[in-house]
């Protein structure tokens, strides 16, 4: 199978993390050492659990358990263990919940569905989850291009309520715009969208204001690499590049590259950097594409680039180890707290690092998905007189749609889950030596929200913007 998996991950994360978002303004997150109102964190069994007679109000909810499904691409022989971190994190989150009194007076049970980088397996995972889980949490399936099973899923009463999906990644427009799917880190792409033609995008200024402040008076211009493997990868990456152009970073040259390209394919890219004396470079592929570009640039003697820009997909320890010294100075912008902050900076991060034995960036977002679900369940209970038997899909949907401020106790900036609006707040990381170092803001536990500057809003046809290369 001709899969360019990393590319797809990369472009989605680009939109998710590189300040694509906006809409409702969000305030800065909690100051260090202090968390926002605890929701699921430290959840203890409410008093009602001691007196209530628990029933089975919904599929996936029994008197003793509440079952969720985490679906992720793990078992593909093409890319083994791709999102194993997401599965592990949701299970770790369940352990954390159960160690703190469970959820809705019940033990959280996690079922795994392996979508194996296949639309069929994704569809089958949804069908199974529809029959045995109340919701899907931490969904990380790159080829989920059919949400009919999710939207038409019937509840215990036989109503086509739908299956709540709190997704970690939403690659396809149908999932992004589905009424039953909610992103843990929403993109700034407008819905509804047919899949082709013009679309409105929102991109925050945080990253670029940091660069313009750090390099005052420098006319930033550079080389952009667009992942061209699939129409969806092109469509997901061009809006960001066009936003950068609009914000003042001129485009010297643009190249389309594949996730299967060799390092030598980046020779013309490096040549262009030298020819135009570029001081900015950005690769929309996954971390390994950026590693190849950096290695080739080093081999070709590129010295002019001051800013090697990237989003959360580059926040990977393999960027450093596989880069073998060539990735020094690489930026990566996150909309989660970096693991380097450590547990002391944030209690939620502390819990994640304590319960997830093999933590990674994808796992951290999947953990937040779990926390959104927990918050929705708790809110559903609260909305029904703290009734633990009010946990139905319909009530969970209602709670999620009304969830307009959520920050996982400061682990992410505040987002509007119900309105599917992300945040422009980010954390800037940079490779320095053999580790990732926080550069903006430098204080652990905090995000740079760029003084809540409203995002850039623009409309383009994302595929038509690709001019080839």
């Amino acid at each position: 199978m001709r899969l360019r998996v990393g590319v797809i991950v990369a472009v989605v994360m680009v939109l998710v993390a590189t300040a694509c978002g906006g809409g409702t303004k969000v305030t800065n997150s909690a100051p260090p050492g202090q968390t926002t109102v605890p929701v699921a964190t430290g959840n203890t069994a409410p008093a009602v659990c001691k007196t209530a007679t628990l029933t089975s109000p919904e599929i996936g909810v029994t008197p003793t358990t509440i079952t969720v499904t985490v679906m992720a691409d793990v078992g593909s022989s093409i890319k083994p263990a791709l999102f194993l971190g997401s599965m592990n994190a949701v299970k770790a989150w369940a352990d954390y919940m159960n160690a703190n009194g469970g959820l809705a007076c019940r033990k959280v049970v996690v079922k795994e569905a392996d979508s194996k980088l296949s639309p069929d397996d994704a569809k089958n995972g949804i069908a199974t989850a529809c029959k045995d889980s109340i919701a899907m949490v931490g969904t990380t399936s790159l080829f989920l291009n059919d949400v009919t099973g999710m939207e038409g899923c019937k509840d215990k009463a036989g109503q086509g309520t739908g299956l709540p999906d709190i997704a970690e990644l939403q690659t396809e427009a149908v999932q992004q715009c589905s009424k039953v799917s909610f992103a843990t880190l929403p993109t700034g792409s407008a819905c509804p969208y047919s899949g082709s033609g013009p679309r409105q995008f929102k991109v925050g200024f945080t990253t670029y204001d940091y660069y313009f402040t750090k390099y005052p008076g420098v006319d930033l211009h550079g080389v952009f690499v667009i992942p061209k493997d699939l129409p969806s990868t092109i469509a997901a990456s061009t809006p960001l590049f066009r936003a950068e152009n609009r914000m003042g970073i001129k485009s010297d040259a643009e190249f389309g590259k594949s996730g299967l390209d060799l390092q030598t394919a980046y020779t013309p890219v490096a040549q262009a950097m030298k020819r135009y004396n570029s001081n900015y470079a950005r690769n929309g592929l996954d971390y390994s594409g950026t590693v190849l570009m950096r290695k080739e640039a080093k081999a070709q003697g590129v010295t002019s680039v001051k800013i090697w820009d990237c989003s959360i997909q580059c926040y990977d320890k393999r960027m450093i180890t596989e880069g073998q010294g060539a990735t020094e100075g690489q930026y990566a912008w996150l909309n989660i707290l970096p693991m380097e902050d450590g547990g002391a900076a944030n209690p939620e991060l502390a819990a994640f690092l304590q319960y997830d034995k093999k933590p990674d960036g994808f796992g951290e977002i999947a953990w937040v998905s779990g926390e959104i679900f927990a918050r929705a369940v708790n809110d559903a209970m609260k909305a029904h007189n703290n009734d633990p038997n009010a946990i139905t899909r319909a009530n969970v949907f209602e709670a999620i749609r009304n969830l307009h401020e959520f920050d996982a106790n400061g682990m992410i900036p505040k987002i509007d889950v119900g309105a599917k609006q992300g945040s422009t707040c980010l954390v800037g990381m940079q490779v320095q030596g053999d580790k990732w170092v926080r550069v903006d803001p430098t204080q652990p536990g905090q995000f740079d929200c760029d003084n809540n500057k409203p995002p850039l809003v623009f409309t383009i046809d994302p595929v038509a913007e690709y001019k080839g290369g």
Partner: protein
Amino acid sequence: MNRRWSTLFVWAGTIAFIVVVSWQAWAGNPVTGSSLLNLLVFSLPLAGIYAMSASGLVVVYTTTGVFNFAQGAIGMFFAYVYWQLVDSTTGWGWPTWVALPLVVLVLAPLTGIALDRVIMRHLQGQSLVVQLMVTVGLLFAVIGLVGLIWDQQQAHSLPPLFNGQGFKIGDVVLTWHRFATIVTAVALAIGLRILLFRTRLGIAMRAVVDNRGLAAMSGARASLLSGFAWGLGCSVAALAGILLAPEVDMAAGGALTLLIITAFAAAVVGRLRSLPLTYVGALILAIAIGWSNNFLLFAGRWTNVSEAFPAIMLFIVLLLLPRAELRFARTHVIRRIERVSTVRDTLIGMSALFVAMWLLSRSLSDANLSRFALGMCTALVALSLVPLIGWAGQVSLAPLAFAGIGATAYARLGGAHGSIWAVLLAALICMPIGALLAFPAMRLHGLYLALATMAFASLVELVFFAQPFAVGEGSRVVSHVHIAGYNFEDRHTFLLLVTAVFGVAAVAVVALRRSAFGRRLIALRDSEAASATVGVNILETKLAVFALSAGMSGFAGAFLVMYYHTLGSGSNNGFAMLQGLPIVLALVIGGVACVSGALFAGIFGLATVLIQENWHLNLWKTMVFLAPGLAALGIIRNPAGAVVEIGEGFAPLLPWRKDARREAAELKAANAEPEVGELGLTRDFEESDVLLVDRGLGISNDVPRATARTG
């Protein structure tokens, strides 16, 4: 059209293609001496990389006669082994001067010998499709094995030689590592050329491939040479893997493994035998890609054209190859032709299948209903290959290409509303396209034909779907077919519909097999020369079977896209070239010449998923990874197919199958006879062996289980 004109036509077409593409996609960069020098310097390392990859392929093919799809995967495996040895952080930190010779000169050859002993030796005399699919199975198994041994969440990367330093030619820096790759590639070419053509060992190896029996009679130790050849092939693969690893993402199923498919085009330029010409092919390919990267811009419907360059080049080179001659000289022993089911038996069997599916579907979950439906759609695709590969012996590696075209036709011509006419049109539209593919089949035989179909599948994947008249930029949503006012939207009825459609198609296929046309196809498979001699119109027959198979595949594609509900233009749309290979593999495992083999192909993937889901044991997860490799072993033991073997095992137990009992007795008697060995080279050649050889060659009248054929 004679050869001269057809060659001229292909050349003219190629030049016109290059001019038109360059004109249409011209980026506007000036063509200067400096830019052309840069292009050359850019292309040389790429050529070295392709040449290294293709070398292993050519060496293995030249010395074993097997076209090894797993060559890249084997190289990737040894790159990981080398990484384990030399990496100083999580590996063992051994010095390069110890690790490199150990991997390339010891571990790789030993692995090659083991591969030969366990798998490859048994491929001698097997059909081409069996040989190819065994290596495809090995490819998947090696990817799975690497994923099991080395945690894919961890970093694995090899540093370039000489710390990435290099020297400048024009504006481009040529790193010493790349220079070393080019030099190694050239040295390898010279060394291998000398080995294969100037030494007794090389000549003996090639002789064994040309005619194993004759070579053995001349004193060649075929089995020993075969082991040496695979050892050599693995060494070359390991060297290529280690040299290429610093240039790519080392992910198990990534570029390092799949680069070999790009290298096919270069290897075919050398007709899989000439290393110097292979290097010329690698250089042409690299320059074409370099030209594209430096001077052309592809966007919109042509976005992936540059990635299709290897497939385009492969197709062109295959068209330029001289027309394959009819072969008369070889006589080799094959198993008797499989028993042909009757239409009545098939009708009963398919009715039983439908009833069983109906009963089963009542207890299946929604997810499993979907899986079974996909299994039946896959079986329908596999069924389209039975007449083409199983009967006519025309190996096609493009089952999903025609299915994709059929799916597109369905989506465009009424699939959005579930029109039954759109299903039929999908089949009809694919038939002339399939017939067009038969024209290369008239020129090409065996492996070249298989590669041509593979190139065609790549072009469909990378170019066809992106065309506005096909899918274009977005995607197309389709509905399940409506028949007599009934839609089959729910999973249960759709499964039963696809099962019924498969049953009807299977009965029709069996009826076809028993017809004069079916017998003509078998005759074509056994010997084109003999068929032509007795009056079979080869052109007409090939055209018909390609059209038939394409039509069936397009028909199946319509159902497949109904299952998917959506047809996208990207290579994740379910119709990618590489996704078709497991279908052919599963069909070969099941039995490529029978309809039950197609059914097996449908449920093969389904079974592993169900086992994995229902028994949450790590062992099963392991088995799922390695299943293709085990299946490859299974093909060797049962080349006729698992279903055929199972059928032959059970048939004597049926009271009405006297013929099966008689055949079983004859088979038992034949198997009781001793092996000849290597014509007395490994043990004494006794008088009884003479009789056995006579039987094998068809000299004796007493041939209980084998018939002779020419071809």
